[in-house]
């Protein structure tokens, strides 16, 4: 073969390799950087979307802008989560949503029943879910931190006692309580609720530090850190659990054992990879992994990264993660803010009020898209931290 042909062949190999990589693994990571005030504005716009849709303490659950149709049905766990995020917005200085959040809280408190040693937030089911009660407790804790008003402390403690009663000796949380039998339903767990309960217990500890809430909080956190993914057979370990990250952030000021630090690091790696991949998706000609993540998905990652960033700032064993965590947090927040529907985008749809401030995928948005995005954006804007900070 002629030498020139060899050189040409090598040039083709190099160019082909580069092109193939550039549209796949080596696609550019696009990270808009709108700055903290713009991120906070985006969080406020998300809160305003919830506020506009609130009627009698209930929010717009799901909306399809293509059909200009609201989806039937409701989910009280998500209701509790949205209310909690509105109180986070109040904590960040946006008292204009307090009335809406309080309406959402009143709706929850109208539906609490005695369960176990405390109170549980239920719908019409005969089984109380751990998640709705955990997020009710988190909402009450965020409200207390935001307003300093202790008028719901009795309810907060009562919900905490219900949560504690769902815990098994290993720290695993049972996800249901049978209101007819008057006992937790054995062997039923949820990959979401355990972390939510751990966070609620940690919040209780930081609000009432002498009452012993730290023991169950740490026990559940340890279960999450060392056993949960395996026992409950979760894929992609560690499972990207932002509730566990919130819990770590609440408990970090009190010191974290080595295995908890290792868990924080593993979670940071997971959330970091998810944001990095998302930042490349815009340059992929074909979706290799998934279409663009929904607003709630990116919001969850930001909640995780923001909470872990707080942990890394507190714990010298994670000092090497401080800068990368901030980079990823800012990157994800920039992506999220860019994908939010603004006034001009909204004007093109039949009901602009149900579009502006929201995140849509395939023309559908759900209340928790705004919830998680709001929380994540506040964390990225530096406007939110642990109750215990």
């Amino acid at each position, binding site marked *: *073969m*002629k*030498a020139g042909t*060899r*050189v040409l*062949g*090598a040039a083709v*190999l*190099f160019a082909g*390799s580069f092109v193939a*990589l*550039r549209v796949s*693994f*080596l*696609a*550019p*990571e*696009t990270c808009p950087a709108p700055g903290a005030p713009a991120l906070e504005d985006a969080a406020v716009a998300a809160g305003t979307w919830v506020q506009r849709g609130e009627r009698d303490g209930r929010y717009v659950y799901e909306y399809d802008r293509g059909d200009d149709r609201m989806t039937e049905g409701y989910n009280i766990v998500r209701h509790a989560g949205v209310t909690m995020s509105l109180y986070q917005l109040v904590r960040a200085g946006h008292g204009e949503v307090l009335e809406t959040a309080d309406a959402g809280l009143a709706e929850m408190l109208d539906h609490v029943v005695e369960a176990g040693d405390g109170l549980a937030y239920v719908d019409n089911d005969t089984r109380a879910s751990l998640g709705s009660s955990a997020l009710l407790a988190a909402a009450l804790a965020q409200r207390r931190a935001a307003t300093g008003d202790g008028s719901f402390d009795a309810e907060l403690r009562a919900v905490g006692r219900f949560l504690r009663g769902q815990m098994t000796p290993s720290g695993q949380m049972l996800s249901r309580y049978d209101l007819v039998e008057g006992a937790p339903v054995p062997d039923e767990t949820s990959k979401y609720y355990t972390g939510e309960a751990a966070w609620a217990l940690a919040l209780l500890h930081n609000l009432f530090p002498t009452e012993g809430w730290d023991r169950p909080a740490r026990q559940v956190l340890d279960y999450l850190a060392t056993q949960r993914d395996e026992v409950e057979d979760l894929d992609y370990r560690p499972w990207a659990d932002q509730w566990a990250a919130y819990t770590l952030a609440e408990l970090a000021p009190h010191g974290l054992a080595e295995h908890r630090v290792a868990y924080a690091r593993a979670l*940071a*790696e997971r*959330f*970091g*990879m998810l944001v*990095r991949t998302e930042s*490349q998706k815009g340059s992929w000609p074909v979706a290799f992994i998934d279409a663009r993540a929904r607003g709630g998905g990116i919001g969850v990652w930001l909640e995780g990264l923001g909470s872990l960033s707080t942990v890394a700032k507190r714990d010298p064993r994670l000092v090497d*993660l401080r800068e*990368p*965590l901030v980079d*990823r947090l800012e990157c994800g927040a920039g992506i999220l803010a860019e994908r939010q529907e603004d006034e001009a985008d909204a004007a093109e749809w039949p009901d602009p009020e149900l579009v502006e401030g929201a995140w849509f995928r395939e023309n559908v948005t759900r209340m928790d898209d705004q919830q998680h995005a709001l929380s994540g954006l506040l964390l990225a804007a530096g406007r939110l931290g642990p109750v215990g900070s």
Partner: protein
Amino acid sequence: MRALLTMLAAVNPTAVAVVLWPRERGVFGAVAAAIALGIVAGAAAASEALLDALDVSEATFRVATGVVVGLAGAHRLVFGARPVDVDTPTGSWRRVAVPGLIPALITPQLVMAAISTGADDGTFTATWTAAVALALAWIAMVLTKQRRLGWLVGTRFLGALGIAVAFALVVDGVKSV
């Protein structure tokens, strides 16, 4: 250690020996290896600027390097190596370029490894680890060799090493924040 293994897998000195079978003149081989080392050092030194220009993080580039090193390793493991057929006359300095640099030494996997190691571990580490791998490649290409079987076994072994290194690079890249 990983940097050294990455360079060994990317250069694959035994494959270089087979490609330049039966042997290359020592001075030609030395010049080719020196130029290759210069390219590695330059790529490593420019790694930060290159990654910035490409808008990718070190972790992302590490994953891409793992993919390229892994594919090259798998190719060597499955297909081995063959002596290169070129019209460059024996004794001509043009042999430094072809087949010395192309296709023997300068490969996509070596360039990727140089940039990735430079970004992760610094120019010095990238350069000395590449120097070791290229020195072994030079020894392999100038040795007088009789039977090809042992070299082909070595080629496949280093191909397998490339796959292992690739796995480590990808996992590390994916797990980076």
